[in-house]
């Protein structure tokens, strides 16, 4: 990892920063990986309902070994708890909730995000297979799509780009991106810089980004 990408927020801090954007009363869907860390964030008394694609509505924190219920997992296969008022439904009803627009925000990981709001998170270059899961349903139908990802690849190449190079998951849907370097909003021409992580300069962030960064 390059010096640029080792700075800034760690995974939990990226999740924390994005979770602080959740508004009172929102139904929030968290994807596999860093997004699941959002449910650990303390956002005060805001009333958030977490929805998992496998039909779990109203789940809480991941439970430690020994306390977990093996019949209950979130989208990442983690054994979570249920909050008062939780409900269990089957997959078709879970995606009915998604397609009918009841999800206020879906938070997902990605390989790439583009300045026009496209993103790619299901297929790498040079492979036949892909892993879509519920990403395309969520991306097409949630009211908002937020992305959390490392700002650059392990080789130091930018993941925030003018246009996606990988097959897209959905077009023009991403409105907010948290990376280890800060918080950014796709704005068409580039990425509007909402906030920089501590110790990260605008120049360093621009250098790690494959599209113009627009100062706040």
């Amino acid at each position: 990892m390059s010096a640029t990408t080792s700075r800034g927020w760690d995974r939990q801090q990226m999740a924390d920063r994005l979770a602080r954007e959740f508004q009172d009363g929102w139904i929030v869907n968290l994807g596999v990986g860093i997004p699941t860390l959002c449910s650990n964030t303390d956002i005060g008394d805001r009333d958030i309902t977490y929805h998992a694609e496998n039909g779990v509505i109203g789940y809480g924190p991941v439970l430690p070994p020994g306390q977990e219920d093996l019949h209950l997992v979130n989208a990442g296969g983690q054994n979570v708890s249920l909050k008062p008022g939780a409900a269990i439904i089957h997959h078709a009803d879970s995606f009915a909730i998604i397609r009918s627009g009841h999800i206020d925000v879906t938070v997902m990981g990605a390989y790439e995000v583009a300045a026009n709001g496209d993103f790619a998170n299901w297929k790498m270059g040079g492979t036949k297979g892909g892993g879509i899961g519920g990403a395309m349903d969520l991306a097409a139908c949630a009211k908002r799509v937020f992305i959390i990802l490392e700002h650059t690849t392990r080789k130091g190449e930018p993941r925030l780009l003018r246009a996606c190079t990988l097959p897209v998951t959905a077009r023009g849907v991403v409105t907010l991106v948290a990376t280890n370097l800060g918080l950014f909003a796709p704005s068409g021409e580039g990425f509007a810089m909402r906030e920089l992580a501590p110790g990260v300069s605008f120049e360093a962030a621009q250098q790690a980004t494959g599209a113009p960064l627009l100062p706040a």
Partner: protein
Amino acid sequence: MSRRGKGVGSFAEAVADIPDGATIAFGGFAGPGTPYNLTKALLAQGARRLTCIANTTGGAHQPRMPDIGMLVENGQVAKVVCAFTAATRPTDVLPFTPFYERGEVEAELVPQGTLAERLRAAGAGIPAFYTPTAVGTELAEGRETRMINGREYLLEYALPCDYALIRAWRADAAGNLQFRLSQRNFCPLMAMAAKTTIVEVEEPILPTGALDPDQIHTPGIFVHRLVPIPPAPEALWTARRQERTA
């Protein structure tokens, strides 16, 4: 409702008639609802040229449990229909992946909500439907779309199957099922979509009428064979519970 019991004596007996070329749906999402014991019996039974429908081909996590990836390794699978034909983390390699990369098995990659709805449609007498999912992506290339009320939708076809293999928590002898927590996932939809639904059941099978009619998740109309799961280690429970038993 028929009062003749649907209980079958063994997992082997329950899957004995599955022929070569059958289309089989496998329940489960990240563990709960996965029919490990019926899958193990199908590995021993040996039916070939199968089309396997499931969320994933499995095998991303240890300890390894019977899954579609094992059926592929055993030379039993012609095609899979799944929401994952590769792991989401590029560094993870599913056991299925090398067989797919070498062209030894076909795959149809389907978004998870579309997979669920295609199964539901098959079980509901709906031959096809339009969905906004996957519009504008590689998956929609060359396929029929339609503008409805100003938005573009993709045509998707129902996904009927010959057999569904699922796991439930409780059943009565008439085949009425209850699932526990996230065990439900795809299982009720697969039961609807299949001509023959075979269920491995965690609790001892109850007499017909013992379940509250208001609390049935899948009615016995969609269920044909029930096999109670013996205690571990004789039978397979969840991977985590298996780990503890071992």
